[in-house]
């Protein structure tokens, strides 16, 4: 047992520092994905809420596709397909130029596309739950459409969307493990490396799981705090 704990030490023969580095990359990837995912989600939700049937269809199609594909497949399609597409585009405008999509960038793109698909459903439900009168009231106060959205509607719908988004964040955190398959040194891949050298798969995969679990639990606490903050004005009515 002490031998196993020793394997987790920091320094050249322990794997503690490598695993933590991996966990750090996992967190960075998830955090970098979040803003893109949220923006995509909100935009697609607005598409689905638009009056034009064509725009609605576009939004629905986006959700159908990226909610239906396995995340691993989306990742492969972006990683391999995105690269081919980018090269073909560049060959048209600047032949002989090469471009490299790092696995980190491919990971962010794929994960935020998937996050956006699910988040758009959460946002749509929230948009529909904010009473129409709120928008009209904002207009009556002389706010522009954008101001009304930013200052009146968005804070309300964000409060409603928060629990759903919190769940999606947890899903995202776990989905980052898939990028280990496209050669990004995240927590799971670092664990694979450690297993390859030490031949202690059970111990190391268990440690990796516990690290993921710790990240999930911390996230759950943070989301709960955020929800509490956004619900301040509603505490009395409960």
């Amino acid at each position, binding site marked *: 047992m002490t031998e196993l704990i020793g394997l987790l030490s920091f320094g050249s023969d322990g794997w503690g520092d490598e695993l933590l580095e991996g966990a750090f990359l996992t967190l960075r990837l998830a955090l970098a994905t979040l803003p893109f995912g949220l923006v995509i989600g909100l935009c697609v939700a607005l598409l689905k809420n638009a009056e034009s049937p064509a725009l609605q269809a576009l939004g629905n199609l986006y959700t159908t596709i990226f909610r239906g594909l396995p995340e691993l497949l989306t990742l492969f399609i972006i990683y391999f397909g995105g690269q081919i597409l980018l090269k073909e585009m560049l060959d048209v*405008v600047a032949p002989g130029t090469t471009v490299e999509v790092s696995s980190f960038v491919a990971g962010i793109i794929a994960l935020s596309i998937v996050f956006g698909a699910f988040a758009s459903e959460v946002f749509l439900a929230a948009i529909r739950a904010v009473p129409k009168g709120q928008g009209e009231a904002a207009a009556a106060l002389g706010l522009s459409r954008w101001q009304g959205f930013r200052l009146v509607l968005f804070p309300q719908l964000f409060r409603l969307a928060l629990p759903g988004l919190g769940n999606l964040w947890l899903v995202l955190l776990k989905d980052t493990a898939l990028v280990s398959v496209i050669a990004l040194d995240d927590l799971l891949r670092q664990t694979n490396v450690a297993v390859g050298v030490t031949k202690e798969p059970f111990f190391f995969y268990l440690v990796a799981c516990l690290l993921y679990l710790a990240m999930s639990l911390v996230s759950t606490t943070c989301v709960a705090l955020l929800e509490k903050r956004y619900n301040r004005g509603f505490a009395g009515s409960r």
Partner: protein
Amino acid sequence: MNAKSLILAAAVALGTTAAAHAEWTTVRIGTEGAYPPFNYVDSDGQLRGFDLDIARALCEQMNVTCEFVAQDWDGIIPGLVAGRYDAIIASMSITPERLEQVDFSDKYYQTPARFAARRGSDITDTSPEAMAGRVIGAQSSTVSANFLEDIYTSSEIRLYATQDEANLDLAAGRLDAVFADSIVLYEWLEKTDDGSCCEFVGDAYADEEYFGTGVGIALRKEDDDLREMFNAALAEILANGTYERINAEYFPFSIY
């Protein structure tokens, strides 16, 4: 702002790098880093191995700066085609199937493939008939995997992302045998602790249709100039003893 600079700006914004390569001062080389002794990552995170030493010698000979990019085997040809790097030096066999996608330099080594099984297993004959019903592992996307897929149709074939994972499952007893390059297997069987579980069985395989005409440097089809540079440099290091010296550092016999 024209379309070209717009796309370039977008590419930079995406965190990508763009570089023109009209005169080849820098060559980016893709390798796997999980295929000892030919290419692997040491405990300091450095890429090492026979492939890497040959690559460095070639770059020195060609008088270009080389940058190494580690890439998983599964995506190594797509990565070359898409321009992540300009050449693959990763023990890739020259096969007709691959020649449809990429070009190759002349061969820089050639070794046969073999089976390995657990010590004391009852496998003596490795013909497709004798191996029927047995579970055989190989690294996916390799000549060994393709050979198994086509010839050993009544065996159960399992394909792994790295050779290491296949070896791990042979040691654990999930596989009856693994099939891979003989040198790579030799390195594992003879030089590692967990490799002591297993031993070579059967003969060596070198059927040209599957195992190709040796291991070469893979290049994009349009980069004829780079291929000629590599071939010239290869001929030079073979002639001036550099190749022999690197070979001797790894193997007590010539693998050319």
